[in-house]
């Protein structure tokens, strides 16, 4: 069964030089452990293929049930150079939550929609 990431986690994003950071915070430990397995840098890079031109790095924060992603070269230039509407990656966190995640049979999805 596939569910939206927004049913498993919430998020926040901001700028980090010419890249953005996207924090994904799971609703419970089972979701966190699932996301650690399936939400790889490669999956995130593919999801943001039209936005992120550089590498994706991932950091784990089990104490907060959180994964932190750095999306390099995703703002159309750093500092004040960007001409894009979202020059600071403010919306990248919500963009991440559109991801479709395959969950195992019987997995308890915390948020219905």
């Amino acid at each position, binding site marked *: 069964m596939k569910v939206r990431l*927004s049913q498993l986690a*919430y*998020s*926040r*994003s*901001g*700028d*980090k*030089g010419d890249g953005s*950071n996207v*924090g994904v*915070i799971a609703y419970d430990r089972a979701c966190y452990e699932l996301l650690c397995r399936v939400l790889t840098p490669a999956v995130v890079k593919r*999801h*943001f*293929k*039209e*936005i992120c031109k550089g590498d994706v790095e991932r*950091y*784990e*924060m*089990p*104490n*907060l*049930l*959180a994964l*932190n992603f*750095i999306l390099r070269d995703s703002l*159309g*230039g*750093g*500092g*004040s*150079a960007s*001409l*894009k*509407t*979202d020059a600071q990656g*403010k*919306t990248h*966190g*919500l*963009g991440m*939550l*559109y991801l479709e995640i395959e969950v195992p049979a019987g997995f308890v999805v915390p948020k219905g929609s």
Partner: protein
Amino acid sequence: MSGREPILIANGQGFWGDSILGPVRLVREGPLHYLTLDYLAEVTMSILQKLRSRSPDAGYATDFVRMLERILPTCKAKGIKVIANAAGVNPSACRAAVIAVVKKLGISGLKIATVEGDDILGTLPALLASGEELRNMDSGKPLAPRLADVQSANVYIGARSLTDALAQGADIVIAGRVTDPSLVVAPMMHEFGWAWDDWDKLAAATIAGHIVECGAQCTGGNFTRWREVPDMARIGYPIVEAYQDGSFVITKHPNTGGLVTVETVASQLLYEMGDPKRYLTPDVVADFTTIQLEPAGKDRVRVSGIRGTPATPTYKVSIAVLDGWKATGQLTIAGPDAIAKAELCAKIVWERLKLDGVAFEPEERMQELVGTNVCHAGIAAAPSEPAEVVLRLGVRSTDRAKVDRFGMELAPLVTSGPPGVTGFAGGRPQATEVIGFWPALLKKELVTTRVAMEEVR
């Protein structure tokens, strides 16, 4: 060390331009010991340096002084101390403006301190001549060849001089480029008398500062499940309830809007995060993987368990360099066929510029059809036939004349393009400076910060 506990430290301003209602309501609507205010983004320093070059009395956050006029009588009555990084690149002018406001309000017995030493623009040539290269942390290049383009240069300083100012009895502490969390670290260091090598305590105070530094972003602002956030118009700004043992509670005044939960606090912990094990400030290296969050009542989240490691021997320097010019402008295009007409409009602009000998490389120009999914391109489905779209066009170049020439080609589309083009407001797009940031490191012993104090008797 005052011996009182807990200490209530609020942040009423997440950035220059944040709502004035934040600080006004924080001082009025409940108990408070310290009000911190954050005004400086990286780009702000170069703007302020430019203002100062035009007028010796300019170069600080003028909004801060206007805001103080509204809150100082309450601050004086309740004994609330104010700590702000509002000095920009002109601490003495900021202090003078604050003193003028204090006198105008007829308040006496206030000590106003400024913390100086972060602004190294004037000493850059000497630093380079002495062998400091200020290499760009990203590209590795030395600064010297770009010296002529430097607009501002500031060291991100820590909490020490702010703490000194509080120890000297300051009621208002105004700093320049102090790192944001240090505004909260200083009152904790002052009140609790922690040692400057008590890394766990410094890390805890730093993380408290990180959580509140963007104002209402930890009290329900910008929260994913926004429908659950009550009364956002009256959103309460955050308060750190700090304890001697290094633990603290994030809360807000009762009867304000917004929401403080483990989720709203965790969201803000992730904001602008890099490597969570190594969150570097001038004061400490904080480890975000040690943070424990737990609910502690309605709109209260307890934060504990934080560990830190020794601060690095260097300061981060933020150097603003002129990287050319840019302009953006927009038109609204109504349907039918809004997308096709907007795409034609963009094509016309680039062609007309070319006809006049002005060409931009693909990476120097941008076109967005706002309403057709520019924020989540390739992720969310775009509408195939929106009733209208906003066409945003932009260019950047090292040649200012080219950028200005671009600005002249938007309005003509209203009469010489397809039908339904409107919404050309705000006049011709003007060329503005592109400011690049040159992050570098500087040995701490090369930077001296100091406190200057003045009392209004």
